[in-house]
């Protein structure tokens, strides 16, 4: 599975103008709901917060991968958001988070869900890629950077 197959480009946020974990999830959920009629923003925020309560999806190195299941969704969707200054996301290394990759999957998605999660987690492992993703200026460049990395893996 390729990241580009599930990324909803219209929902990508170049600069999150918020400060809190809850607001990050809310901004991303709303942006995704706007273009995906199968997603109800409020419901998604609730699902994501429940998952965060278990343990933060901030996996360190400035990366968080919030995720959850959504009843009524018929395929995997994802979006991406940046916060240049970084946001406290309770990440496992205690550092602020700049890159957020949201994954939403149908209620019964079988192995696709886990494969996608593992792939996204590996996707952000390369420090050069993370740096590039943080440095590029336009939405177009962000998509290009993701596309390029996607082709490598």
């Amino acid at each position, binding site marked *: 599975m390729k990241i580009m197959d599930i990324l909803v480009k219209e929902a990508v946020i170049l600069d999150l103008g918020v400060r809190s974990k809850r607001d990050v999830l809310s901004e991303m959920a709303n942006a995704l709901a706007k273009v995906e009629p199968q997603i109800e923003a409020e419901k998604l925020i609730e699902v994501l917060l*429940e998952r965060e309560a*278990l*343990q933060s*999806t901030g*996996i360190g190195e400035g990366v968080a991968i919030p995720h959850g299941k959504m009843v009524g969704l018929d395929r995997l969707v994802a979006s991406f958001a940046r916060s240049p200054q970084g946001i406290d996301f309770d990440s496992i290394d205690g550092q602020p988070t700049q890159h957020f990759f949201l994954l939403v999957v149908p209620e019964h998605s079988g*192995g696709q869900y*886990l494969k996608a*999660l*593992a792939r996204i987690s*590996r996707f952000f492992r390369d420090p050069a890629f993370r740096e590039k993703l943080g440095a590029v200026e336009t939405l177009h460049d962000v998509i290009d950077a993701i596309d390029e990395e996607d082709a490598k893996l």
Partner: protein
Amino acid sequence: MEAKRYIIMGAGEVGRYLARTLSSEGHRVTVIDQDPAKRQLVEEQLDARFVQGNGAHVPTLEAAGVADSDLFVAASSSDEANLAASLLAKRAGAPRTVVRVATSEDVTRYGRTYERAFGADLLLSTQLLTTTRVLNHVLGYNTLEIEYLAGGAVQVRRTHIEAGSLLHERRLSDVDLPRGSLVLALISGSRLIVPTGNDHAQPGDEALVLGTSDVIDEVEKKISGHAQTLGTVVIAGGGSTARSVATGLERQARTIKIIEQRRERAEELAAEFPQFEILHGDATDMSLLGAEGIGSARAFIALTGNDETNLMACLLAQELGAQQLTALVQKSETSSLWRKVGLLEVVSPRTIAAERIRNYINNNYEPHIVSFANGAAQFIHRRVERRSPTAGGRLGDIEIPQGLIVAAVLRNGKAEVPDGDYQLEINDEVVLFVRESEVSTAHLLFPGSEAE
């Protein structure tokens, strides 16, 4: 080498031996003991500083200088005092502690609970280490170390590979290991390899082998290449080490005979272990040994609490024709002498415990097996929660070859080594074997706190 500061609580067998070894290497050693009569011995013979007092009291720990120490070792004869001292030493600023406890079960079953509750970085049982050493010798195993996971339901063994080992002679995919076991990794020098079916080990390598407690011995037996079942094994002495050795040999020997001198204990043993032959009598009584056919024993293991009895019993057993001799010897002067004679394998509990602690020190205070390959991989224990992405997931979709392996699952108290079709359920406890590069993925897939 930089001189380190070590504090050892308890000037008993283990404490003295460890103190002498460390001070002879140029380290600064302080020994704490309640008995003022130990001062002279500690200062003159061990070349260490002596602090008289109870190690489980804060003033004693402060006088010993725990805050500036590199390691605090609680090795007194009291488990409770050792555990309390570990907790207090940590609070007082000791960077790490080692705690010695008496019985095997405290380590195999409750080890993690104790480690967490009392801030112990390494918990060890002399009895457990001694049992492992005896079994290695008698069975021809090459276990270097055992780690107990999931309350002892699963073991990981670090095993030395010799020429002739099945893991050397065959590719991994051609080694038919029992269900419930798995070769997790091969360690070659400082390199950790998570093997594919095509790999095979070289002599001198080590293997990390995981298995449920009911199959791990069979795995070890296969790997070692010593696949025969022993005939008769005779154990002199019916104490706790003897019991755990006998239990460890149960599946590998046709007949196990235990000679116990005290009638009461012999009767207890007979009631507790109907599968063993319990003989009431003196292990140095030639007529008893002769009458019981000790001469045809494949192995004779002397584990009484008395060094002289053990050595004498071994010599008599040999005279009668017993093949392989092992004696437990507490006093180190005696044990080194007998080692030189070379007639028998001498097992010295205090040396074994001290060696384990020195290994821990030499491996940068890394208590767990896997980190022997420089922290290249680790075990993570997790419970599958309702909101875990893996709840209901198939293992084949989760595992990352050579990086993240669900090594064991504990479901309803039963341990399993699962295959790729295994489906995880809420409340399953999983033991993950995770390479350093996949730790963040492991946290993402298995969120929550460390399972007990």
